[in-house]
């Protein structure tokens, strides 16, 4: 009984931590949309085809404004990600013109992209990007999912949170849109996903919901490229420690029985 109380104590401690954290995280009172992500849970994994579709949505829609500076084309073929073949990645990278140099004459030159290049940014710098977007800066998407409370659910909700009918108490300025899930309900990004906005090579129907799910899965992988390895190793190590703890506990009981029987 005594031991149970101790455990209750420890857990209540962690529980209260959770509460404290959640009040920091909660900015608006709208509860987020929570689709069934394939990567949730103890055995969560990404769906390769979904990541590949998600990359297509990023490339054809998001990438016109949002950079992903921390990713290289080679990442797209690495295990645990979209796992394009190396030939596919070479072809993908070659679609971009990358500035390189200086060469032996001291001149900068452009060449075709190679897998080790970082994703090409839509703008040369932040100021150029602000100038093109009415003063707003489309954030870099490399770790965007981890940088928002609610993570994947939040990004998905924002993508799905555009509504035509604007509540009467919200006044929108020029170039600002209403979004149900954005803190303050105002967003400077126009509705990015519209049904049929991309044409999927695998024949999946490109509904708004499908594209949002695909691109958020892709962004989740981009922010946490080793998620699958982590969950796999996590399960193994928790199982190992659980068995070891039970065994050591039995050893301890055996050792202590030597003196407890004497009392």
């Amino acid at each position, binding site marked *: 009984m005594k031991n149970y109380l101790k455990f209750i104590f420890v857990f209540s401690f962690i529980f*209260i931590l959770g509460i404290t*954290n959640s*009040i920091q995280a909660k900015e608006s009172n709208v509860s987020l949309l929570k689709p069934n992500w394939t990567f949730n849970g*103890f055995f969560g994994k990404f769906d390769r085809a979904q990541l590949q579709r998600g990359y297509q949505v990023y490339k054809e829609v998001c990438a016109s404004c949002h950079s992903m500076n921390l990713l290289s084309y080679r990442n797209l073929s690495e295990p645990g990600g979209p796992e394009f073949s190396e030939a596919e990645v070479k072809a993908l990278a070659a679609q971009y013109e990358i500035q390189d140099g200086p060469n032996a004459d001291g001149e900068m030159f452009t060449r075709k992209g190679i897998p080790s290049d970082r994703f090409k940014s839509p703008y040369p710098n932040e100021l150029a990007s602000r100038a093109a977007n009415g003063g707003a800066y489309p*954030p870099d998407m490399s770790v965007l999912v981890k940088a928002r409370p609610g993570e994947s659910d939040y990004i998905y909700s924002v993508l799905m949170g555009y509504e035509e009918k604007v509540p009467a108490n919200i006044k929108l300025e020029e170039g600002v849109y209403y979004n149900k899930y954005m803190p303050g309900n105002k967003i400077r990004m126009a509705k990015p996903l519209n049904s049929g906005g991309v044409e999927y090579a695998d024949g999946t129907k490109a509904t708004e919901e499908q594209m949002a799910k695909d691109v958020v899965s892709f962004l989740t992988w981009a922010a946490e490229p080793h998620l699958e390895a982590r969950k796999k190793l996590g399960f193994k190590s*928790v199982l190992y420690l659980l068995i070891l703890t039970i065994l050591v506990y039995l050893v301890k009981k055996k050792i202590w029985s030597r003196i407890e029987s004497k009392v």
Partner: protein
Amino acid sequence: MSEYTSKSEEKFQPVQTNKVGGSPYTGVLGWIDNRLPIIRMFRHEYLDFQVPKSLSYFWSFGGILTICLLLLILTGISLGMHYKPDAKYAFESVEKIMRDVNFGWLIRYAHMNLASFFFIAVYLHIFRGLYYGSYKEPRQLMWIIGIVIFFLMMATAFLGYTLPWGQMSYWGATVITNLFSAIPLFGESIVTWLWGDYSVGDAALNRFYVLHWLIAFLIVGVVVFHVIALHIVGSNNPSGIEPKDTRDTVTFAPYTTSKDLVGMLVFLLIFVAVMMYAPNYLGHPDNYIPANPMVTPAHIVPEWYFLPFYAILRSIPDKLMGVVAMVSSIAVLGLLPWLDFSKVRSSVFRPIWKQCVFLFVLNFFVLMYIGGAPAEGIYLLIGRIATAFWFAFFFILAPLVSLVEKPLPMPQSIHEFEDWKKQGKIKVFQFFGK
């Protein structure tokens, strides 16, 4: 005539500067032990060492903290080999560790979460001390050394949190270093000196990195003192009674070691589960946004383990007094051995003090909640009441309870205590009421 010229031999004390010998070991071990008696010492302090028989799992946290510290240093050294303390590259170098370094994600998440679990363990360790009166004669100095370690831990944790150079790193560093500006007369100059610049920037990050390492190893040094002191004064135990004969004690190995190992493994299990399945749960999402001096986050909050003290800081309207209150809220723990002068150590026999300690813990959580909430309206009021209670606990409750409380009847020895426990006469760990 001076002594030097005296011919009398009796005036000189014999001297032997060479103390080689005396080892109970033979062979190679004996050869080493005769010249450097660490093997004897290890055996004496860690194998044959007598420990009270009645230690509960609450006594595992010393060992747990040692493991945490070692793992933090180990993971920290690996991280240091890849990290760049430069305002331009810090954020990206951490991301490089997360993406490209082999098992870098594991090492970084381990280091990050270990910091949190180090504090969980240290708070439980301190709670143990409060509940069972481990700060009382003759353990006052060990308790004070422990508080020094806690201060150093807070400094290291704060410095470490600035290193990824995310938004919370930057703004946390700005808020905390600005506290020094509250020092009268020299405040501003001290802050500039700390920053090495006129704002938090590259110079500050570079020195924070150096100091993060330095203080981490200072902790190791002070922990050595803490442990030496422990081996002199001996462990307290749930009964609060000193052991008298071998019926009261067990040898450190294998009894304490096996029990500590169980405690460590349970702790490690919880830690690994959190690290592997919710690695960012205890962190703040804003720290995945690169530091930007032009954009202030909506709420600047410290790490969870600082929240109670942050709440105390903010509940005082005056900046200087706020800083004084925050620092003294921890330092006051060092006075507890003298503020609580009851002769009985363990709360098991102190019905009123026991309730006070639980209220103190509850109040700690209230402050933690307030520290994470915005400093306004009802939160501010509750924060002020909780801050007042924090100090009242030490300056009013501790002496008052020692004076008026009538301790419960106590057993004569630890083995009698153990018998009482088996007969159900006493409950060792109990929440409010019966």
